[in-house]
């Protein structure tokens, strides 16, 4: 009787956050099967933490491609809409991450940054990089979009960020060594812009500076992951193993710390892997 009772509790997750419940349902529908109780609880904890810590409303798109299934991997946790892997070329056979072939594989979020509400004073891009690409030049783009030299938003290299303008005000560059995988966050908030990296050892600042709000947020080109949307053409040259990616409003130090930790916990529990 005790076994049956505990088994029932293990399979049932009472008190699910409604948005967590909706995402879980979408994933299970896509998979045509159930996910584990541990995965459900991890998703639930992520949503609840986000709402209590105040960063949930800042996250506009977040993809968790850990399901070894293209349909489930393409579902946005926030809006429940689906992005697309337009030309294949993405290995989706692994639990915990996906990987572009570095030539044709990329992901289209189906939305431009302005439509998500990003502004020149509040914007962020983020990704969970399990294994960093074998190529890490500044022109190897992880994610983002480009419309003109004063209307662009992307992460590249390892790491480099360009926010709205390619003049000195917009570029943030700090080309580190090769072991810079983890959760990378490009963040502009509170008059600061920077690149931040969470690894198992903690969250660190790769580079940070202050600047005026130069340039404009792209408003006609969709955000891509595993590539840059270069005025409508995918620029693909990286083969990182990615466990998550997304975009949102600016986070700032406190929310960035909480969000990146929550994402780490979600990914590790749901995938069974460990953040580097």
């Amino acid at each position, binding site marked *: 009787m005790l076994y049956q009772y505990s088994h029932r509790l293990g399979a049932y997750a009472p008190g699910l956050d409604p948005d967590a419940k909706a995402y879980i349902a979408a994933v299970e529908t896509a998979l045509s099967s159930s996910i584990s109780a541990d995965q459900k609880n991890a998703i639930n904890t992520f949503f609840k933490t986000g709402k209590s810590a105040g960063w949930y409303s800042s996250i506009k798109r977040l993809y968790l491609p850990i399901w070894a299934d293209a349909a489930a991997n393409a579902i946005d946790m926030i809006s429940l809409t689906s992005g697309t*892997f337009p030309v294949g070329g993405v290995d989706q056979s692994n639990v915990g991450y996906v990987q572009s072939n570095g030539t044709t594989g990329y992901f289209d979020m189906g939305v431009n940054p302005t439509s998500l509400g990003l502004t020149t004073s509040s914007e962020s891009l983020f990704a969970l990089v399990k294994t960093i690409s074998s190529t890490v030049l500044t022109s190897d783009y992880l994610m983002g979009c480009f419309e003109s030299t004063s209307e662009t938003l992307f992460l590249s290299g390892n790491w480099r960020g360009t926010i709205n303008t390619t003049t000195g005000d917009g570029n943030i560059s700090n080309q580190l060594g090769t072991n810079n995988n983890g959760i990378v966050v490009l963040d502009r908030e509170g008059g600061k812009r920077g690149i931040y990296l969470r690894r198992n050892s903690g969250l660190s600042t790769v580079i940070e500076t202050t600047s005026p709000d130069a340039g404009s947020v792209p408003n006609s080109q969709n955000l891509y992951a595993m590539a840059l949307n270069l005025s409508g053409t995918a620029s693909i040259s990286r083969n990182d193993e990615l466990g998550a990616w997304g975009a949102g409003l600016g986070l700032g130090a406190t929310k960035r710390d909480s969000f990146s930790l929550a994402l780490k916990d979600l990914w590790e529990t749901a995938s069974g892997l460990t953040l580097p």
Partner: protein
Amino acid sequence: MILTGYIVDEPARDTLVAAIDSAQESRGRRCLHLGAAYIHAGASAGNYFIGLADSDLTQKVAGIMLKDYPEFQDIIASLGGLDARVQLDSADLIDPNAEIEP
């Protein structure tokens, strides 16, 4: 990098993409292989490339392997079967006029 797949012209590309889209949309989610890469250089310049490596055949979409979709067999048959796949140098897919930001 050498890629494996099919080279088609624009009308054929549109037909194929529509068929792939329909197969996925009818099941509730469209997410994969909904486009083709334009071939910029080489003998097939001006045409489109639809990649289909052996590893793609066992990729899952909504719980079913790509090769197990009923529509997949019809689509592949219309292209001449898996043996009709060709190889393409990935360099042919790079747009020489793309202005990459430094």
